[in-house]
C-alpha cells in the first residue's frame, strides 16, 4: 500500500517538474546562485550552504505536501478506502525525502566544485544531512499536516516548523564541520542522531493525528 502511495507522490512531483532532471537542476541552480552571490571559492561556507538549501527546499515543499490532497478530497477518500493515516504519513515522508534531500545530495559535488570544498568536507556534509534528514522531514510533516486544511496555511506552517528546524540546522552544520577532524564519532553527530530519533518519535504520531483531524473538508 505504502508503495503505491509513494509511487503516486513521486509521479505527481515529477510531473510538476516535467522530469527527474528538473528538481536536480533546481538544486544545482540554488547552489550556483549561492556561489555567485557570495563570491568565488569559500569552502568554509559549504556545509552551511548545503544545510540552508536542505532547510529551504523543505520549507518550500511544505505547501505541496498535504494541501493538494486535502483540498481535492484525496485524504478523505483514502480514509474511506481504509488506508490508515500512518501509511499516508510514512509514504508522504518517504517521497518528500526523495524529492527534497536526494537532489541536494546529488548536487553536492557541484557545490564542491564551485566552492572548492574538499572531499572530506563534502562527505561530512552529506553524512550530516543523512543523519539529520529524518528530523527535518519529521518536523516538516507535522507542520504541513497541521495546517493543510487552512487556506492561508502554507506560510503559517513554515513559521510553525521554523523553531523546530533551527536546532537541527545548527547541529547539522556543526556535525558537518566537525567531520573532517573527528569523523562520525564526533559528539555533534551523536547529538544530531538523537535529535532525529526524538523528532521521529514526536513527529510521527503528531503527523498521524493531524492527518486524521484534517481529512474532512475545510
Amino acid at each position, binding site marked *: 500500500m505504502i508503495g503505491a502511495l509513494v509511487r503516486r507522490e513521486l509521479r505527481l512531483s515529477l*510531473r510538476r517538474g516535467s522530469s527527474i532532471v528538473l528538481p536536480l537542476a533546481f538544486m544545482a541552480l540554488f547552489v550556483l546562485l549561492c556561489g555567485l552571490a557570495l563570491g568565488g571559492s569559500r569552502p568554509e561556507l559549504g556545509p552551511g550552504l548545503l544545510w540552508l538549501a536542505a532547510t529551504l527546499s523543505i520549507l518550500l515543499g511544505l505547501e505541496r505536501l498535504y494541501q493538494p490532497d486535502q483540498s481535492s478530497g484525496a485524504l478523505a477518500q483514502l480514509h474511506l478506502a*481504509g*488506508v490508515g493515516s500512518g501509511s499516508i504519513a510514512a509514504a508522504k515522508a518517504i517521497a518528500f525525502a526523495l524529492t527534497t534531500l536526494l537532489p541536494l545530495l546529488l548536487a553536492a559535488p557541484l557545490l564542491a566544485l564551485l566552492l572548492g570544498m574538499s572531499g572530506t568536507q563534502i562527505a561530512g556534509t552529506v553524512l550530516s544531512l543523512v543523519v539529520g534528514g529524518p528530523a527535518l522531514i519529521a518536523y516538516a510533516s507535522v507542520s504541513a499536516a497541521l495546517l493543510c486544511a487552512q487556506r492561508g496555511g502554507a506560510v503559517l506552517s513554515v513559521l510553525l516548523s521554523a523553531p523546530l528546524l533551527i536546532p537541527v540546522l545548527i547541529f547539522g552544520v556543526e556535525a558537518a564541520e566537525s567531520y573532517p577532524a573527528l569523523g562520525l564519532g564526533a559528539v555533534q553527530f551523536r547529538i544530531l542522531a538523537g535529535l532525529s530519533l526524538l523528532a521521529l518519535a514526536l513527529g510521527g504520531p503528531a503527523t498521524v493525528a493531524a492527518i486524521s483531524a484534517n481529512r474532512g473538508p475545510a
Partner: protein
Amino acid sequence: MAGSTLTLRLQDIALSRGGQPLVAGLNVEVSGGEALWLTGANGVGKTTLLLACAGLIAPDDGKIEWEAGGSARTPADVAAYAAHRGPERDGLTLGEELSFWQRVSGDTAALDDRLAGVGLAGRENTPVAGLSAGQRRRLGLACLMAAAKPAWLMDEPLAGLDAEGRALVERCVSEHIRAGGLAVIASHHPVALPGISARKLVLSA
C-alpha cells in the same frame, strides 16, 4: 456487497458549516436495498449532510450510525462517497489515477473494464487535466464502483453527464441497490430508479 442488514440511521442530527447552522432535528433511516433522494435549494446543506454520513464532518448534535450484519460500523467500513468533484490530481493520467484508487480499494477488476464500464475506454493515457466536465464525472463514478462498498453517497451524480451517461448512472445505482446496497443521492434532478424502493428527503430552509 454486504448483506441486506445494512442500515444508516440519522438521529436528531443538527449540522452547521462555517459556523452557520443548516439543519436541525433530522431523523431518517435508510437500509440496504433502498435509495434516499436528497433534494433542496442551493446551499441548504445537502453536500454537508452527505459529508456527515461519510464521517468527514461531525454533526453538531445527534448521532449518525451505520450498522451492518447486526453490528455497528464506521463509515469507512461500509460507505463510499462520490463527491461533486473527485479526488483526482491534475498531474496524473486517467489510467494512473484510476488504477491507484483501484489498488487502494483492493479492486481486482481490470483497468480497461473499469474504464469501459463508464464509457472512457481507450483513454487511459489522457491526462486527467484534459478530461471534459462529463468525463471527469465518469471517472468519479468508476472510482465509486472500484471502492466496492455497500453504501454509496453520491453528490449530484447526474450533473454534467449526457443522456447516455445519466442512464449509465441510473443503471449502476439500480444494480447496486438490487444487490442489497443502499444509496443516498443528493441531486436537483430526480434519479430514475425503476423498481427500486426510494424515498425523497427535501431539505428546506
